[in-house]
């Protein structure tokens, strides 16, 4: 069909193409729908590699057991795309073909050393993801060639990974900057380090100097803090509506630090290891994510990690979301620190307090304890991160309570 209609564009989910067509930015003479080409939506574990068909939706990738086990970095990146509605339609092939520097799966594919498989009348060829993207919207795909899928090396037991995306909000946003990290961690020593940066250059780029600085090194939080400024060297961001050049440079350094930290010490971060775990729905219940099998027991841990990216309101408070264990509480109870802001600080309950709660208590339990259960519109930040009623508290958490200020 493509040979008969040389200008035709393949469309799968249409989540990007239809927007461009409506804006008049794309006027294809013909569309060829491949959204029901089921042979393009296979996910297969082929032993050394995982095959993900171009027609796989982001929802199917982020919920796939095979991807979660063998290529979890791709699952996390797919889960960061758009919204549930977009993930139900948008595909991996579409994300690759669009070749946007902000495409969420692209840093992941590059960091994992994936190969993109294209097919034309002359046959199939595989192109390294790192060489596939040539510029915004430009790729190594030849005329008449289509993307049939990606071939991703399977993660081994000592492979570690992380994906970090900064958008203007958590859902449905185009990234301001993103970082995908993939590396091998053996006996506390990093090797085969790949750090891919999204949205900070015309194409997704690798932070080569940063990677080299970590290669073969025994990783500590101090080392990460020392080398992460090198992430800026690979970036050549523009100033646009989503962020200025300077802001992006600062963020790419911060995200690189966070991503490397999370990759090395996934346990110490108080958040679901990957957003896709929450999205996976009932079918994945009981599966606690790929970080479980990462060999964390053998890690060399720094005495006291010093995250540099989280602002601290209180010199004594534990580093926000990257904190290590905190003393206080015993086996059956936990001790948390509660601080109040705005009206809650001025009237009741007033000043900061330390509260002991039964282990397993949630934010809702804390509301009851501080007699705020009946007052509506209280917002809780647990270790500087917005959490909701069902969030289970841990020993040493700092909970900030406030009324949100709203307006329309």
């Amino acid at each position: 069909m493509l040979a008969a209609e040389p200008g035709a564009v393949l469309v799968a989910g249409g989540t990007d193409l239809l927007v461009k067509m409506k804006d008049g930015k794309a006027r294809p003479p013909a569309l060829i729908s491949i959204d029901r080409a089921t042979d393009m939506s296979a996910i297969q574990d082929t032993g050394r590699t995982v095959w993900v068909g171009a027609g796989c939706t982001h929802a199917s990738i982020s919920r796939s057991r095979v991807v979660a086990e063998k290529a979890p970095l791709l699952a996390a990146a797919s889960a960061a795309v758009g919204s549930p509605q977009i993930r139900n339609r948008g595909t991996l092939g579409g994300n690759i073909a669009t070749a946007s520097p902000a495409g969420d799966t692209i840093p992941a594919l590059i960091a994992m050393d994936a190969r993109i498989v294209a097919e034309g009348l002359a046959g199939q060829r595989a192109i390294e993801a790192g060489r596939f993207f040539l510029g915004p919207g430009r790729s190594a795909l030849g005329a008449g060639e289509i993307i049939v899928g990606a071939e991703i090396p399977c993660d081994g037991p000592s492979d570690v990974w992380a994906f970090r995306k900064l958008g203007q909000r958590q859902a449905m946003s185009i990234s301001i900057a993103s970082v995908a990290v993939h590396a091998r961690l053996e006996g506390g020593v990093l090797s085969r380090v790949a750090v891919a940066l999204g949205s900070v250059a015309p194409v997704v780029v690798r932070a080569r100097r940063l990677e080299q600085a970590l290669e073969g090194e025994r990783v500590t939080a101090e080392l990460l803090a020392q080398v992460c400024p090198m992430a800026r060297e690979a970036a050549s961001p523009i100033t646009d509506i989503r962020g200025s050049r300077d802001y992006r440079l600062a963020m790419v350094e911060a995200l690189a630090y966070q991503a490397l930290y999370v990759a090395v010490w996934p346990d110490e971060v108080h958040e679901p290891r990957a957003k896709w775990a929450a999205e996976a729905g009932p079918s994945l219940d009981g599966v606690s994510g790929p970080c479980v099998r990462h060999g964390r027991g053998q890690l060399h841990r720094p005495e006291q990690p010093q995250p540099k990216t989280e602002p601290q309101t209180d010199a004594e408070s534990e580093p926000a979301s990257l904190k290590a264990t905190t003393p206080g509480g015993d086996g059956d109870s936990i001790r948390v620190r509660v601080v109040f802001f705005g009206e809650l600080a001025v009237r009741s309950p007033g000043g900061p307090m330390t509260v002991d709660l039964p282990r397993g208590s949630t934010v809702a339990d804390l509301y009851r304890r501080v007699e705020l259960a009946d007052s509506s519109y209280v917002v809780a930040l647990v270790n500087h991160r917005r959490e909701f009623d069902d969030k289970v508290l841990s020993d040493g958490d700092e909970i900030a309570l406030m009324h949100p200020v709203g307006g329309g």
Partner: protein
Amino acid sequence: MEAVRVRITVNGEEHVKTVPTCMTLLRLLREELDLTGTKEGCSKGECGACTVILDGVPVNSCLVLAYQCSGRSVVTIEGLARDGLLHPVQEAFVRHGAVQCGFCTPGMIMSAVALLDANPSPTQREIREAISGNLCRCTGYKAIIEAIDDAAQRMAGWVDSQAADEARV
């Protein structure tokens, strides 16, 4: 403009329509089938006002071409009530006042129904995730989340009674 024949099941009823190839599912629903409960907001997949359930999953109908839905099944807000009784999610939205101007409501409800179909007892985080592609500009998310949570709890009983009804028939 080329035309294409589309056979589509909407709210359980099969329709055959000849429509332009570039027509979106949203326009097919609103203009050809007069199902105007589904709203057009941004028309680029940002706002979720046009959310419908396509073969069991929520999608932005503004970004789906009508011809891509041939042979498929769509549920819109009009397809939720049964025998004059609102769907439990709709009832919960009424009970919690989870509606202000109402424009986002059909899309919100379709996202919520799709969530509860797949996951009958979601956590708050899962509810928030499920409606993360739906914008409400009246700042009404709190009541919406409470309504969905409430609906989930009531639906546990509702699903049982539906099964019992069907067993009687």
